[in-house]
């Protein structure tokens, strides 16, 4: 049987930065109350609560979809009871850094599709743009409402052994995970209700209404109540749960491509039992290559023919705007600090992870020579697919990637293997350090909003750095604990 007090006393941080412990046996101030509470739990109590977690997740129907499971397409969401904590004072600085970053990225996208000053001024190489697979020539000359392209951004943050927070990547196309952030909090509230009375934990529940306001702000018919829909690829998409969840939370229709039609007036309509109804804003969770068979992939059945026509005419708003992905590929990523300087005349508040671009001869030589020490990433993949984690790879895999890089250097970049931070995680009946990252979400309209914390993903396998749920990762509730208002002991 597990003795929590002993477990926590024996918890070994190793050489990593731990989110809850400053050193073994030494809780961080923001985590003290939580760890005291957990430490005082009996083994039975902890067991009861872990069972309650599983039950809550089943009853709440929190699931994600896995392609390969055939019949059972829903899989219960793997969730760890112990939250990850970040003090408010630290979070506020991260929040500013994220907003700064997204502001610069939006200016960059707007510039690329219009004047291309950034290229003319020699800050961003023209050949990078011409080779980008996410640049959509269909978007040239378009200025979407408010000049904003990436209304919803999910940026992945990691910490190294020193505790420095880095941005690992930005997701500007269809970032997912926010519903799990919201549901994780619901689960924790159910399972650890007492602790919420004694700690000043910042709420996260505001996100759906903030998202709704962000979408509503884009409506081409601002005088009316806007008709907003969420466009999903459908039930077999791995994020379908989230699509349904968000639509429900915002009270908007969840539509599929076949529900939409673009008529001769270049407006978008949805097919309802009452007839056709005009649609003003589409929160599209379909990759832009599939949203309009007329403009992009002609074989796609996930979108609606004519959507781009309606969008370029300004008759419908798309969030995120098509083409926004041009700024989230992993090669553009390396330019973000310069872009922030160029557009905002500020220094980047959040650092990038040092990166090597394989298109640069010198940097490529370094990557090829040290591939066993590096993480190699393709420029345009997400979900952890198609990458090489050097220290965990075989000689054959390394050789394969060397060939891939030589064949298409523009498509690869490499980063040193980071000693990702850890946080206490219940594994069986023990508490063990496991590596985590963090995905906050940033909303942009005339004002910006950042989630309080975000989705903490945890690699449940010992030593593993891969946190993606499709590859054996789990998640945790993330608490931003207010250390600025110390009097807030009880609420």
């Amino acid at each position, binding site marked *: 049987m597990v003795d929590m007090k002993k477990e926590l006393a024996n918890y070994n941080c190793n050489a990593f930065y731990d989110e809850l412990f400053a050193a073994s046996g030494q809780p961080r101030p923001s985590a003290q109350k939580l760890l005291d509470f957990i430490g005082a739990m009996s083994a039975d109590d902890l067991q009861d609560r872990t069972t309650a977690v599983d039950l809550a997740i089943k009853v709440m*129907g929190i699931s994600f979809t896995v392609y390969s499971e055939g019949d059972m397409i829903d899989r219960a969401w793997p969730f760890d009871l112990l939250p990850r904590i970040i003090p408010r004072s630290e979070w506020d600085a991260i929040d500013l850094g994220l907003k700064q970053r997204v502001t610069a990225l939006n200016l960059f996208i707007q510039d690329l599709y219009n004047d291309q000053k950034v290229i003319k001024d020699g800050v961003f190489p023209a050949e990078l743009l011409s080779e980008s697979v996410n640049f959509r020539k269909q978007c040239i000359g378009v200025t979407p409402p408010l000049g904003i392209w990436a209304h919803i951004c999910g940026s992945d943050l990691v910490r190294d052994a020193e505790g420095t927070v880095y941005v690992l990547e930005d997701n500007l196309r269809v970032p997912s995970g926010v519903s799990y952030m919201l549901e994780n909090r619901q689960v924790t509230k159910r399972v650890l209700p007492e602790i919420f009375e004694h700690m000043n934990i910042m709420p996260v529940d505001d996100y759906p209404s903030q998202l709704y306001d962000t979408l509503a702000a884009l409506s081409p018919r601002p005088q009316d109540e806007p008709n907003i829909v969420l466009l999903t690829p*459908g*039930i077999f998409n791995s994020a379908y749960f989230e699509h*349904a969840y968000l*639509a*429900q939370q915002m009270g908007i*229709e*969840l*539509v*599929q491509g*076949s*529900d939409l*039609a673009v*008529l001769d007036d270049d407006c978008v*309509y*949805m*097919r*309802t*039992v*009452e*007839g*056709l*109804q*005009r649609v003003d804003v589409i929160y599209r969770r379909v990759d832009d290559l599939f949203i309009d068979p007329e403009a992009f992939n002609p074989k796609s*059945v996930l979108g609606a023919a004519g959507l781009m026509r309606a969008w370029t005419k300004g008759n419908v708003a798309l969030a995120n705007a098509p083409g926004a992905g041009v700024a989230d590929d992993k090669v553009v990523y390396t330019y973000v600090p310069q872009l922030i300087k160029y557009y905002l005349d500020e220094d980047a508040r959040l650092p990038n992870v040092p990166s090597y671009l394989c298109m640069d001869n010198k940097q490529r030589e370094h990557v090829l020579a040290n591939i066993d020490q590096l993480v190699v990433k393709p420029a345009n993949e997400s979900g952890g697919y198609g990458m090489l984690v050097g220290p965990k790879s075989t000689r054959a895999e390394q050789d394969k990637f060397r060939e891939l890089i030589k064949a298409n250097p523009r498509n690869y970049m490499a980063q040193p293997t980071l000693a990702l931070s850890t946080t206490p995680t219940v594994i069986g009946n023990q508490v063990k350090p496991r590596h985590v990252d963090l995905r906050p979400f940033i909303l942009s309209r005339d004002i910006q909003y950042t989630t309080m914390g975000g989705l903490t993903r945890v690699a449940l396998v010992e030593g593993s750095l891969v946190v993606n749920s499709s590859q054996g990762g789990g998640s945790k509730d993330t608490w931003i604990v207010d250390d600025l208002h110390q009097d807030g002991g009880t609420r």
Partner: protein
Amino acid sequence: MLSRVAEHIYWFGRYTERAENTARLLKVNTTLLLDLPPKITFGWGHLPRIAGCQEAFDEHHEQADENNVVHFLILDERNPSSILSSLRSARENMRTTRDLMPREVWEQVNRLYYRVREQGQQAMSRQRRHEFLDQIILDANMISGLLFGGMSNDQAFRFLHIGIDIERADMTTRIIDVRSESLLPEQSEDIMPFLNIQWMSMLRSLTAYQMYRRHIRRRVNGPDVLRFLLQNTEFPRAVVFCLNRLNSTLLQLPHSEPCINQVIQLRTHVAGGEFHQLIEQGLSEFLDQIQLELNTLHSCLHKHYFAVEEQGESQSQFSRSD
């Protein structure tokens, strides 16, 4: 409300109702067999036709014996109308419309689906079949209970209700057809003592026996039972009752006139049935005709509410309500 969503909800209603009524269909046949004298043989061969899956059955089976038929109607996923397939379809239709119905409904549908899938073999033995079918009927009624007690009476609810009523009317005619199939000439000496028992079994399979006795204070006889199950306006599994309710549900939908007309026409037809004669001849054809007209009603609904979804359809038939 999106056309696609309306259609999913409608089919969810139909498939749950179909699962329940297929259980009733098997129940009536099983009990009829027990009620008949041993020398009268009517087996299982007529059930696939009555359930509307004769072709699929013939494709996979040469012999229509008890084992084959019961398995085909309950567990065979190659039969799109088997109880298991119906529940699977109900589940798939609900998957994308979960947010419109109470969460408990989703859980109950899953529970029922897995019960049939995992314990369906029980129904293969006559001894356990009755209990198993009763359990399916009860479970299905729990779904209706959750829906009727916990779902707002909104547009989604109306399409659900329409699906349930069409399927129920259809299945009631099919269940009656089991009896008409088994019918030897009514005057046959051998069968006379068993006639009323047979009608009673059928009423029981439709949970209609008690209500029948309350409505009709005569000894049970064929024409009265038919009148009750087809023309009664108060018993919820009676065809005319379902049609009346369809009518009032449709009245609450936009541009529903063509569908309402179809319902009225069908009701006139059902109400005109003279069962003293039909029971001698033509009952099966009469029932088939009702099923055909229900099909026409479905096409009418499809055209006016659901077809909007289909690619390549002309859009001119839809008014812009913007």
